[in-house]
Structure formats: C-alpha cells, structure tokens
C-alpha cells in the first residue's frame, strides 16, 4: 500500500470531510467563474447602456471658430492608438415629404456603407444607401410614417428637391452617437452636393476603441491637428451616464476582487480543518517513521486532487449559473442580453487557480502539522495555535493596514490612480480578517453574555468551543466578515454616490418640460442666437408657462484642459441650481451677476483652479479671462464644467444660442403645455421631453446599474453563505466526538442542536460586528478614493437598513448553516459518535 492508498482509504472512510473540502474549492471556483462572467456581462451591459444613452465614446474635431471646415484640412487620425473609426459628419436641416406629411427633419451625411460594415450603424431592415437618390431613415420615424424599405420620399435640399428611395431603416439607438437628432441619413457627398457645400463638414467624430482612455486619445489627436481645428469631448453629451458607469465599473472591480478573496478564505478554512482534523493520524505516521516531507506531500497531493475535482465541478456550475445571472443583469440594465461571452481562458485559468489555491491553502496547515511536537500531535486535545503564528498574524495585519492607508494617501496625492482603491480596499479587508482572531474571542465572550439564561449551558459550551480554535473560527468568521463588509461597504458607497448624482440632477434640472436642440449643435454659433431667443420668447408667451430658462453649451479650454462652458439664465425667482463648495448661494449668485464664473470640482482638480483665481477660457477660438468665484459640485461632462450667466457668456464668448430650454409650468398647467410646446419644438428642430421622461431615463440608468451591482453583491453573499455552510458542516463533523460525549453525559438531542446553532450564530454575530466596522471603513475608503475623481468629498450617511439587513443575513446564514449538520450529528448512533477519531 502506498501513501496514495492511504488517501483513498481516508476519503472512503470519511467521505463527508473529503467532499466538504472539494466542495469548498467548487464554491470558490464556481464563484470566481460566475462573478467574473456576471461582472463581464455587467460591463457589457453598461457599455450597451452608455451607447444607448450617450452613444459610443467619441471625440469631436471642430473648427475653433465653430464654423464648417474642409475635411481635407484634417490630417490622418485613424492610426492614432485607441481610435476605432474617423467619421466626418455633415448636418443639413431639411424638409421631408411623405405622402401628405411634410416634416421638418435634420439630415446627416456620413459614409453609410462604411459605418454599417464597421458595426457602428445597425440597420433594422434593408441595406445602406449607395446611389445619389437613396437614403436611410430612422426606423422609429419610418414606422410612424408607414414608410418601408423601397418606398420613395421627397427630400427638400438647398439645391434641389429630390425624389429619393429608402434603402434601409436604421435602428434608432444606433443613430444616437452621431446623428444628434437627425432622422435622415444620406451619403455625405450626396448631401454636401445637394446643400452646395462641397467637401465641407460640421465636425469629424472620432470613435474610440473599446477600453481606450479618452484623455490619452484626445492628447494624441490634438497633437496632430492644425491650429484652426480643435479636438474635444463632445459638449453636452450624456456624460452623467458615463460617470455613473465609471463608478459602477470601479464597484464591479471591487466586488470581483472581494469575491475572489472570500473564495480564498473558504478554501483556506476548509483545508485547514481538513488537515487539523487528522492531526493525530498525521502525527502517528511521523511516529512510525514518516518524514515531515512525506506528510506534507500527502496533504498537498490530497489538496491538489480535491482541488482539481472541486475546481472542475465549480467551473461547470459557475458556467451554468453565468447564463441566468447575465440575463438577470441585462434585464436589470434593461439592455438586450449580449449572450454569455466566456473568455476561452477563463475555465482553464479558474481550474488551475482552484488547484493552486487548494494546494497553497493546504501548505500552511501541513507545515503546522509537521512542525507540531509529536506527543502533542498524538494527544486527543486540540493544539493551541503557536504563539509565533499569532504574532506573525498580528504583524501581517498591521503591515496590511499600513499598506492600505499608504495606497489611499498615494491616491489622494495623485501618485496612484483612483483604480488603486480596489487594491487598497481588498488589502484593508484582508487586514480586518487578519485582525479577526484577536477581536473575535473577546467579542464572542461579550456576546455570550447576552445568551438567555435558559440556554446558559449551551451558551457557555458554545463560547468554549469557539475559544478553543481561534485561528479556524477566525477563518470561518473571515468569510462572513468579507460578505458583510462587502454588503455594508459597497451598499453605502453605491447609495451615497447615486444620491450625490441624483441630488445634483434634481438641482440642475428643475422644470416641467425640457426642450433640447436637435441636429448639428451649430446652436453654439452666433448666427443661431437670434432664432433661439425668438423661440425662447415664443415659449415664454405660451399660456400656462411660469418660467423659461435657456441653457447654452459650448466646448472650451482652460489651461489646455477641455471643458464644457454652460451658460444659464439663472432666473432670480428660482433656487440656484448649483451646489457651491465652501461658499454660500447668495455669494455665488452675486458673483455670477457680476459676470464671474463657477468651476466644476473636477475641472478645478485637473487645472489646479481655486476660488478667486482668474482663468483664461478659450471658446470659439477667442481667449477671455474670467474670475472663478467658487467651485461647485457638478457632473456635466464629468464635472469638467464652467458655469456662468448667459448674459456674461454672450458678452465674453459670443455664446448667443440656447441649446436647452427648461420650461416651468404654472401650477396645474404642465400637461396642457405638451401640444403647444410640441409645435414650437418641431418648428425649431428641437426635442420635447417632459421632466418625468428625463427623470425616468436617469432613474433607469441608475436603478439598472445599482441593480446589477446589488445582484453581484448578492452573488457574493450567496458564495459567502455556501462557504460558511461548508465550514460549519466540517466543524460539526469534527466535533462529532465531543457532541457524542455531551449526549453521553445526558444532554438532550435538542440541546446539542441548540449548542451547535448557538455556536454558529455567536460566530455570525461577532463576524457581523467586525464586518460592520470593516464595511464602514471600506465605504469611507471608497469615498476618499472618489475624491480625486469627483473633486469633492461625498457625504457618508450610515444607513440602518443596509446595516441591519446585512447583520440579519449573517445571523440567518450561520443559523441555517449549522442547523442541518447539527441535526445529522445528533442522529448518529452514540457509540459511533464516541468512537469518531
């Protein structure tokens, strides 16, 4: 018989123990595969959502003077790293006649065939337009008009009226990133020719490759442009969505990393128990002449085999779970499911990782088992953890804490990127778990004092059992600490970030109706100013309108940094739609009336601007100095914004037009304004949306993102629960002899079950408290880390609901995890239980 045979015999004799060890690896690998896939699905969902909301990520090249320019003036940009496509755009307001319907629509000229083949324009039906008398229509518009592929429409252009054939219907979502509200898509050369604007374009939109850093591409593109052209992030685009999604991506990284850490604890604990339980047997092998190396090899070979089996099962279960999880996340994000995309390396890497983690986790207990004094190993009493181990653990905990705080400080000073918060958060959590053995015992003793007197004996025994095995119970608790900390920390961080964004949105956009500019954003040009003023007057004269505020948007630059210049009427009768940092509303309002500006906190962070500084702002090629009165919390274009009054913007930058009109209705008149506003909107090529629609739209993004994060957090909790259930099962198996002894001395079966459940719940409660402290610290860490991103501190609010839900979940999980194995243990024949080695 070889030692391998001994392993097989041990598994056959105690299949529960071997199964539990393999199950721990299965849970860990399954969790890794499922979390990874779910996080991937979330990222893809976020991407689709961003594209649906804000279009694909882009950079615009425009003329400094805001006019059209000749496309040939633009150097080759397609080879810039991070550029996916370079798309010249030409917009033309026109009239469309379909049967008896005459519609004022905006046409956009692009290379339709190239866009379709690059996957940047999706046709619901038909094919791209190729000839001079062909065009593609927005599918939603076409459906409304009853137009299908092959039908003809009359197109009114500057040079001529053309009868054009509809060759394809474009999916509305896929138009968003470039059409700017245009519903007619034609070949750019055809549209230019029909508009007598040969070779001229309004802008060149550069589509970024997936994962490309916008700032880096922007710098590279800017470096190639001639003086007359400028590259910027498109002004006024829905960067709110991008910001929410950026934070969500950070959250996803965090959750994924923590789930993996939790998986490691689960395996580590299972392996520790698996070895610790066989301490006597392993010591006996050494007494009989087995070397320490042989024993270590026995344990690690076992870990590799069980790890391999567990990892294969876990990968299969993880893959099976990935489909429904991804579909659920897609539903939460209200995007079409993109199918489960599993990286070909994911499964082999997960299986290899499972084996490596299992072997690594078994190595330490194997070392402990072989360095144990032989007599101590042969004794029936469990060994106390060596003092050096405890000292080492304390040292590790302190080093981890120092590393986590050093990371945070490095991020605060800009030495490390905000993404490093994922690493520092995980390191901090590991530190908490390393501290757990030192806090756990006093906490358990303290909590033991609250056990009702009718369970006094069970309570005392439960505390004694936990105290006897501080390292092992700390590892079991560690799984719960991670799960609770995850739930509380990220729960708070997510809610606080979302509240910050929604609070800003509610302040910024207080109106019943919102009219937004469709088309070529030529609104920024001075020549559109008169028309937009006339329109604002038209709206203001409508019966039932209490107030109209115009907002102009233009791209600008401060100290070489791109920014969005926002010009608002800021009526005196309405609350200030800005949240100043370290300044009063009255002071800010007074400063804005004097013609000064306020800067978004992110812009201030990037450019080093402070309240009271004078900044030189470049808009439409004109450089103008302006005083920064204060900093404000703002999420427009990622917070890189400069806000001032419209009269000042007109005077300083020539910003005449309003891109957005916020219409506040008189009390009870909001609904009645829809039709007259619709008429004005159509006649000025603008979109009309109710505040409810916009709010619903934002809520949809936020709730989708939050929902997907919660579902992955929930997945983490399920993994943690499975891990706890597994380790508690192993712990009960190990205690079978002690439990048998208790029954032998007269304890009833119910009492024994109560003892095991109580033991588990005390552990759950203590871990919950440590997890609570860890979670709140994690939330503070995340918020501290977001400061460089947002430029302002996020207010942290303790949310009792989140805390109580997590603590109750921890208690419920531990109670349930203990109840089933305890019931099984007490059903065991007394003699059999007593003879358990």
């Amino acid at each position, binding site marked *: *018989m070889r*030692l391998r045979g*001994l392993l097989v*015999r041990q598994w*056959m004799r105690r299949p529960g123990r071997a199964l539990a060890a393999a199950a721990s690896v299965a849970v860990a690998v399954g969790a890794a595969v499922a979390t990874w896939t779910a996080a991937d699905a979330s990222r893809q969902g976020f991407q689709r959502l961003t594209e649906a909301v804000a279009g694909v990520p882009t950079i615009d090249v425009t003329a400094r003077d805001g006019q059209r320019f000749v496309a040939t003036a633009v150097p080759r940009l397609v080879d810039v790293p991070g550029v996916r496509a370079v798309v010249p755009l030409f917009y033309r307001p026109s009239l469309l006649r379909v049967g008896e319907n005459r519609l004022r629509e905006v046409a956009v000229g692009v290379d339709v065939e190239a866009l379709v083949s690059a996957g940047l324009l999706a046709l619901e039906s038909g094919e791209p337009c190729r000839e001079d008398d062909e065009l593609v229509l927005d599918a939603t518009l076409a459906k409304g008009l009853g137009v299908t592929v092959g039908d003809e429409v009359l197109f009114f252009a500057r040079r001529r009226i053309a009868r054009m054939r509809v060759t394809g219907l474009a999916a509305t979502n896929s138009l968003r990133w470039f059409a700017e509200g245009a519903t007619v898509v034609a070949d750019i050369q055809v549209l230019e020719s029909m508009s007598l604007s040969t070779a001229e374009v309004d802008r060149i939109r550069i589509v970024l490759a997936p994962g490309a850093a916008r700032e880096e591409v922007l710098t590279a593109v800017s470096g190639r442009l001639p003086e007359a052209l400028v590259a910027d992030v498109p002004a006024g685009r829905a960067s709110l969505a991008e910001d929410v999604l950026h934070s969500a991506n950070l959250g996803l990284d965090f959750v994924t990393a923590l789930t993996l850490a939790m998986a490691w604890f689960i395996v580590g604990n299972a392996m520790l128990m698996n070895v610790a339980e066989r301490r006597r047997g392993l010591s006996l092998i050494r007494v009989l*002449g087995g070397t*320490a*190396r042989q024993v270590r090899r026995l344990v690690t070979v076992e870990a590799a085999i069980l790890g391999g089996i567990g990892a294969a099962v876990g990968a299969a279960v993880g893959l099976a779970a990935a489909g429904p999880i991804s579909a659920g996340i897609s539903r939460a994000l209200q995007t079409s499911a993109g199918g489960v995309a599993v990286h070909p390396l994911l499964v082999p890497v997960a299986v290899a990782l499972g084996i490596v983690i299992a072997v690594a986790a078994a190595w330490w207990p194997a070392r402990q088992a072989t360095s144990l004094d032989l*007599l101590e190993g042969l004794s029936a009493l469990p060994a106390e953890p060596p003092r050096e181990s405890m000292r080492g653990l304390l040292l590790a905990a302190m080093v981890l804490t120092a590393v986590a705080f050093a990371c945070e400080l490095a991020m605060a000073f800009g030495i490390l990127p905000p993404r490093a918060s994922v690493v520092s958060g995980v390191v901090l959590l590991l530190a908490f778990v390393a501290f757990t053995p030192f806090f756990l015992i006093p906490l358990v003793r303290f909590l033991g004092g609250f056990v009702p007197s009718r369970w006094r004996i069970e309570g005392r025994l439960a505390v004694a059992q936990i105290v006897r095995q501080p390292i092992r119970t700390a590892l079991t608790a560690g799984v719960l600490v991670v799960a609770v900390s995850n739930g509380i920390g990220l729960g708070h961080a997510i809610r606080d970030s979302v509240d910050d964004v929604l609070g800003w949105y509610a302040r910024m956009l207080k109106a019943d109706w919102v009219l937004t500019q469709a088309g070529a954003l030529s609104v920024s040009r001075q020549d559109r100013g008169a028309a937009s003023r006339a329109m604002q007057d038209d709206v203001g004269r409508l019966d039932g309108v209490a107030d109209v505020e115009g907002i102009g948007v233009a791209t600008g630059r401060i100290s070489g940094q791109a920014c969005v210049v926002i010009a608002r009427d800021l009526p005196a009768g309405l609350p200030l739609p800005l949240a100043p940092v370290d300044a009063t509303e009255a002071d800010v309002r007074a400063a804005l009336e004097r013609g000064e500006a306020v800067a978004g906190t992110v812009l201030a962070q990037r450019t080093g601007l402070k309240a009271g500084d004078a900044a030189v702002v470049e808009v439409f090629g004109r450089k103008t100095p302006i005083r920064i009165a204060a900093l404000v919390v703002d999420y427009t274009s990622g917070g890189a914004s400069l806000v001032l009054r419209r009269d000042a913007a007109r005077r300083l930058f020539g910003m005449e037009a309003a891109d957005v009109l916020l219409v506040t209705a008189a009390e009870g008149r909001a609904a009645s304004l829809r039709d007259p506003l619709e008429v004005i909107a159509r006649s000025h090529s603008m979109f009309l949306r109710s505040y409810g629609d916009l709010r619903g739209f934002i809520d949809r993004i936020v709730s989708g993102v939050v929902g997907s994060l919660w579902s992955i957090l929930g997945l983490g909790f399920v993994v943690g629960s499975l891990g706890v259930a597994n380790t508690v099962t192993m712990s009960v198996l190990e205690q079978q002899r002690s439990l048998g002894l208790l029954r032998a001395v007269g304890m009833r079966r119910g009492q024994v079950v109560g003892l095991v459940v109580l033991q588990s719940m005390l552990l759950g409660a203590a871990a919950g408290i440590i997890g609570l402290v860890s979670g709140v610290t994690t939330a503070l860490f995340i918020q501290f880390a977001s400061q460089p991103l947002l430029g302002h501190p996020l207010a942290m609010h303790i949310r009792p609901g989140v805390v109580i839900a997590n603590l109750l979940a921890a208690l419920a999980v531990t109670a349930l995890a203990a109840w089933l194995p305890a019931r099984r243990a007490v059903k065991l024949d007394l003699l059999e239980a007593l003879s358990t080695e």
Partner: protein
Amino acid sequence: MPWPPGFHAMQTPPSILSTERLEKTFAGGDAEAMVAAVRGVNLSVGRGEFVAVTGASGSGKSTLLHMLGGITRPTAGRVLLEGVDLATLDDDALAAIRRRRIGFVFQRYNLLPELSLLENVSLPLALDGVTPARCETAARAALEAVGMDHRGSHRPDELSGGEQQRGAIARALVTDPAVVLADEPTGALDSANSSRVVQLLQRLVAERQQTVILVTHDPAVAAAAGRVVRMRDGQVESDSAGNSRP
C-alpha cells in the same frame, strides 16, 4: 531492517540502547515554572533484554520512553541507539531511525482507522518505500507471529482491544527493529487480554532475541520482565532483575 543509508556502521556496542545523564524539562502552566520530568538518567539496555520501567504517575517513565524512541528530544544528555546519538540527527534522519530501528506500541493502539489491520502493519514499510508485494509478505509474517494472521483484512473498529494491541505489536515488529518500545501496552486491556499481550512480548524476547522496553504501572506486568527499572521524580530509583529473569 538495516540502518538507513548514511549511518556509518560501528562496532556493535555492548548495549543496544543507552542513555547518559538524560534530562528533560517542560515549561509548566506558568511561564516561569519549569518541570523537570527526567533528571540525569543513565541507563543501558542489552540486546534481547526485556526491561520494564515502572513508577508512579508523573515519575517520568513515559517521557523517558519517548526520548528513547526519538519522539521527543532530550533537554540535556544523550540517547545512544546502537552507538548513534539520536540528539545529533535531524528530523528526517530521526524519522528514518523510528521507521527502521524502533518499534512502538501505544496504550491506545494508535492504528489508523481507515486502513485494514494488514495495511496498518505494513505502513512503516510503505513509508520506507518498500514495494507493496514485499510489504504484504512482511506484514503477513508479522501478523502470524502475533497470532493475528486471520484478522488481517479487518479494520481496527472490527477488532477487540486485545486484537488491536496484538496488531500494533505486529506493526512494531514488521521492520525487525533493534528495540520495541511499549508505552502502557496493557493499560486499556482487561486482565485476560493483558496477560496474552505480556506473554506475546515474553515470547518475542525469548524466541527472537527482541529487545523490549515497556513502561507500566502494573506490578503484574512489570513482574513479567527480566529487569525492572523503577523511577521516582524523574530519576532511576532502582534497577533490578525482574521475577522472570533466568
């Protein structure tokens, strides 16, 4: 079994196992307090001797046995097995000595519950890398020597205490060790089984010239040995011929 490779053959000493001023001190419950379990023991055991070590609880007899078997290292002094000082050996070499030159018998038998009796007996050989076939042959022979060859396929929990202990003795003998060390081998047995185990050990000494050192607090068991070493407070109080000495 021969000496493990790397051990230089020495001239056979007059005693197979001896100690020189052997001491063992343990840390007590209080960090300051040290307990001297064995204090300056000098002992010499010749080949084929059957020695019983007796004494009251806490007299240091089991600690002495553990040091003789290389299970625990002395605080001071030397243990010489066939002329080799066990204190000079590293862990792996000591494991090899335990595997090849020493046979252990414990009070609680210490058979691995997941293995059959035959597999338990062959375990020291398996640990030494002996082929399965040779392991089985040797194990069967050892079981036959203790009269347990018919129970080889049974697991320990299917055997009585006496049978388990005889199996444990077979395991101790399977490598043909220089010395068999037995720690209270009859402590968990009834008188009938106790008597059978003692007779078995006597037979081994008589027929195979096997050196046996046995720790017991049972005067009846001690009386079966050829020599009785009585310990008190960690020291040898008396060293005399037993009742069975020829």
